[in-house]
């Protein structure tokens, strides 16, 4: 009947209603999409606004290269925090990347089929533990372990070596760069493992079969077929892990020692960008102190933003090539 009378008033009204509904729905969705862009703008705008007062007192360059942090005397330097953040995150990568890669290879190539879900579940659990719980564990379990056993051992074995020995000298405090690096490594391991596993799974079966058919051992198959194919994706996974490590706050705050100084030794107590914000922001009453902390947040945001943007581009590109091949 509707087909026979397309021009009846009722049908026209019905169609107008449909269009209005669709228009409203499209408008709503568009608004929600734009809200994400607005959110990014608000975050950047708020950080710039909050750090503004500091730039009247000192130039950004001065702020970045000064090593003196003394809020009581209006002296603000970001370098000790940038140093601490980079050293602990670098250490975390050094520890977590080989372990994460090995774990991924174990999960995708090695483990018996029945065992895989359990290991994967364990890794997922590891990712789900709140960072303050890691901090608690780090403070009362990891730090004493490092202080009493690991640090004396490292100092004895590696300390006398010229060059890298400088990293392992000084009193074994437990709390410091080393503890923070180790706990960060544990925390970013699930990220690195999850993304790497996903990328490694996209390696086409014929590629693996080809190297096995040519007489490659299992490891040679991994080294010659799997790893080269997923290179870009693995690099993306590493960058994602690095992004997480740079911004991790609570666990690091609880074990890094909270000391705004630069030391070569990994045993020394240090400080990181997120930790100083966590410790001092709520108590900062002085306008310039607040602005200095907001500026540190801006530096942190800039570093993690670049890291994440790079990682996403790499992961996307590697998935893209994988899709084209598969």
């Amino acid at each position: 009947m509707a087909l026979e009378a397309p021009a009846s008033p009722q049908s026209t009204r019905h169609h107008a209603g449909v269009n209005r509904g669709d228009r409203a729905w499209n408008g709503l969705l568009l608004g929600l999409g734009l809200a994400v862009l607005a959110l990014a703008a608000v975050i950047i705008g708020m950080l710039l606004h909050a750090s503004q007062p500091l730039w009247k007192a000192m130039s950004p360059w001065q702020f970045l290269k000064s090593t003196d942090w003394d809020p009581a005397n209006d002296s603000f330097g970001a370098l000790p925090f940038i140093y601490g953040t980079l050293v602990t995150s670098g250490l975390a990568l050094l520890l977590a990347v080989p372990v994460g890669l090995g774990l991924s290879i174990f999960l995708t190539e090695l483990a018996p089929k029945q065992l895989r879900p359990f290991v994967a579940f364990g890794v997922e659990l590891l990712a789900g533990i709140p960072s303050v719980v890691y901090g608690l564990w780090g403070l009362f379990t990891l730090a004493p372990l490092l202080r009493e056993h690991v640090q004396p051992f490292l100092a004895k074995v590696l300390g006398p070596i010229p060059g890298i020995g400088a990293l392992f000298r000084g009193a074994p405090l437990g709390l410091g760069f080393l503890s923070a690096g180790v706990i960060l490594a544990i925390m970013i391991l699930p990220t690195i493992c999850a993304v790497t596993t996903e990328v490694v799974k996209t390696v086409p079966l014929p590629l693996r079969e080809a190297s096995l058919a040519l007489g490659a051992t299992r490891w040679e198959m991994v080294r010659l077929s799997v790893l080269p194919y997923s290179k870009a994706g693995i690099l993306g996974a590493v960058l994602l892990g690095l992004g997480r490590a740079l911004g991790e706050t609570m666990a690091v705050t609880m074990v890094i020692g909270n000391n705004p100084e630069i030391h070569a030794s990994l045993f020394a107590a240090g400080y990181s960008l997120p930790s100083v914000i966590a410790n001092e922001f709520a108590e900062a009453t002085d306008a310039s102190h607040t602005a200095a902390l907001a500026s540190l947040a801006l530096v942190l945001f800039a570093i993690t933003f670049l890291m994440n943007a790079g990682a996403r581009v790499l992961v996307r590109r590697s998935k893209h090539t994988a899709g084209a091949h598969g």
Partner: protein
Amino acid sequence: MNAYAGRKVVNLVMMVLCGLAALGALLPLGSVLWLVVSHGVAGLNFTFFTALPKPVGEAGGGVGNAVVGTLQIVALACVIGLPLGVGAGVFLAEKGDSALGNAVRFTAEVLSGVPSIVVGIVAYGLVVVPMKRFSAIAGAVALAILMVPTLARGTEELVRLVPRSIREAALGLGVPEWKTSLRVVLRTALGGVATAALLAIARATGETAPLLFTALNNQYWNVRPDQPTASLTVQIFNYAISPYDDWHQKAWSAALVLLLLVGGLNLTARALTRNRLKGAR
């Protein structure tokens, strides 16, 4: 023959190393879980969930107000964050194949990596400064900002899983586009979206850093959302860094409560996914 033996040895060594890596990764997990449970259980009793924190030296006391505060802040964060995040995800799935869609997707991905402490400063500027006081609302805004990007990406992936044929069937029957999206496509993806939402809620429940200078803390019962509010995570942090053994014990017990809460949410999400997959099969 000799070269082959060498290659086999290399293979064996590398495979053993990979196995050790897996073991090494699971060791901290076992240690964390075991210590939280074994230390935490000692302090758990009924009053731990119902009492207010006591000053140092006084026996008893609990984290009742912190449990309530966490639930309150997270619930408020859901009110703000869930519609925004899920909505943005639906936008990406339905209208996301455009230049604007790509820009929104990329922004959401990059925003999901913004450190939570930075988001705390943003929420401080947005809510605490104009209100001139710390509040549960400020904490909720911080958590909501953290929820939106991950939730948007998760929702998009799940909505995209709905087969085209279902959508085409609805459109072919003359159902308007908006009704198809809402009543057919979203309805089909509902289980998955609920999983994504639960995971986002679990993550928000475990956050500490963005609450430190937004919700702050509170030693007393509080139900008003415009007042400073206690949370389990901040309470654990304060107890842990204190110099008192008694409070350290409380930190472990509170950590156990937090793990049960977060773990429960995660496991529920997993169970939902499994049922959904079973249904699909």
